[in-house]
């Protein structure tokens, strides 16, 4: 059992990790075919895993309705939403339009899901304003630097700002292209090295807690 639960997954991880690390350097069509096949496998596994996810979702909300937990009405709405969308989707063959005419499924997508997504995204503008207000209060030296940089960049990015303070255009460009880009690159170098080191650890079984549990 311990072999199936521990050694076998580690062996599979090592073999596939090494093969696909090597695949990057092999331009032969066999290598490309291998990558394409495995990508398809992943899509198929992902499709089946979705069943797992939806089951988890149904179970969670069924328990909420059964126990009449606070807000259980929302769980009913969720059930109704999923059932109606799936039924209408099957009825329309998963098509949003047929012969140029919008189907019921398309209507649900265009007039329910898209506006809801848009609403969530629109909230971002207000959240940016509130987060900026909190951060830009010059309570410390760092916050003051942040405030000054933000003001210059904002002035440089809007036409009126550059009209009021002509140097702000060049200055904001310098802040973004020199200071900001340098720091971003430094972070990306660290991230890349961290990701490579983690990959090495996983391929060679040094890091195995993702299998569930510590070292055995």
């Amino acid at each position, binding site marked *: 059992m311990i072999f199936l639960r521990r050694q076998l997954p580690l062996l599979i991880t090592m073999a596939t990790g090494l093969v696909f*690390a090597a695949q990057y*350097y*092999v*331009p*032969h*069509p*066999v290598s*490309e075919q291998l990558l394409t096949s495995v990508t398809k496998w992943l899509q198929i*596994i*992902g499709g089946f*895993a*979705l*069943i*797992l*996810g*939806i089951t*988890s*979702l149904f*179970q*969670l909300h069924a*328990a909420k309705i059964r126990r009449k937990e*606070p*807000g259980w009405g929302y769980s009913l709405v969720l059930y109704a939403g999923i059932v109606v969308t799936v039924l209408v989707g099957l009825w329309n063959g998963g098509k949003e339009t047929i012969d140029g005419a919008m189907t019921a499924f398309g209507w649900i997508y265009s007039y329910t*899901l898209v506006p*809801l*997504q848009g609403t*969530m*995204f629109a909230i*971002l503008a207000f*959240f940016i304003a*509130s*987060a*900026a207000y*909190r*951060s830009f209060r010059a309570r410390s030296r760092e916050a003051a630097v942040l405030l000054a940089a933000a003001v210059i960049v904002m002035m440089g990015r809007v036409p009126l700002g550059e009209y009021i303070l002509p140097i702000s255009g060049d200055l904001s460009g310098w802040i973004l292209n020199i200071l900001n880009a340098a720091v*971003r690159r430094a*972070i*990306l*170098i*660290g*991230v890349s*090295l*961290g*990701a*490579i*080191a*983690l*990959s*090495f*650890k*996983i391929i*060679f079984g*040094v*890091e195995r*807690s*993702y*299998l*569930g*549990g510590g*070292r055995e």
Partner: protein
Amino acid sequence: MWFIGLCPQGLSAQTTLSPPASVLVFDTPSDGGESLTVVWSSAASDGPAVKYQVLLGEGPVAFDLGAFKTVAEFPSNSHYVRDAKLAWWIRPGSKDDHLFVIKNGKGIGLKNGHSYVVLVAAVSGTDRVMSATAQASPTPNWLNLNQLNNLILALLFGAVVFYAINQAKRKDLFLRRIPGLDAVDEAIGRATELGKPVLYMTGAHDMSDPSTIAAAVILGRVAKRAAAYETELVVPHREPITMAVCQEITKQAYLEAGKPDLFKEDANFFITSDQFSYTAAVDGIMLRRKPAANFFMGSYFAESLLLTETGASTGAIQIAGTDSDHQLPFFVTTCDYTLIGEELYAASAYLSREPIQIGTLRGQDLGKAFILVVIGLGTVLATIGVVTGVEWPHLMLDLFKDFK
């Protein structure tokens, strides 16, 4: 494999134009096949008024000009080897030679293993002179020599990481403090005192992404502490496979903490893969259940601020860790602690304090030191190359370029 000079004389004689000389045709190296590369010397007559034509015929030997098809025509002062941006270790000729790559597709039929004959013609007005023919067959290659430097550097870095791990087993290595990770205990302790849950998110990507793996590893440590403190853990997911993996990790953490009875199968649950639907659901959880500690680990996009600002409004301690550099400003602004970039990958080592894990961090540091030296040295060499116009600094710089 390549052949030269099957037909020694030009098919049309002209006095003002000289036939393209030293024509080489060979299988394009480091590719997946169905491609041939043609290289020939530049001529004194090269200029905008003179054009080169590349003609292709099916082999083995084609002397009939009618059997050739013109696959390219361009001014003779273009298509140089230097324009191809090839690494010096696979450059097929001198920088001033002409180079053209014939690829399968767009009316050109090149099949692997078949033999083809190529010739180059120089054209000026109505005058046309031909080179000798050359023959080659395309074949797929097993190694991309362009990326040889990349492969060597990756292997070198791997060796350094394992050397550092070996060293760490023998002696203690210093690990600088990471306040965000020191605060993990504090955040879970606060949730315990308030009797509220801990909310943990693993980011937007799936398990094939290193940041999600790092987030899942940290979840194991957080779950262990939460189990020890008997605090509820809530882990909403965007990806079912990540959910299944995290369920196993959480279960094992509760076992290791000696509290298997406290483990709940539905602590990890799937919401949706849709970005804003997931965000709305998690925001709802934050507002209804008011978790005392929120963890945002992994990769995030536009949802980062929507999540963290809502979390901040509930008064929760918020700890973020991400490799998404574009979202870092939002996390830094709205969270109490932020693990920046590589700190996300260092978290596992920091929390476990295992010598093997800490050794990996030393390996990363050595890698960074190496890159720092290369950047400094590269700047000096590039400057020397530009100022003096000599070639040798570029030979060094090519070693660190990303060739495709």
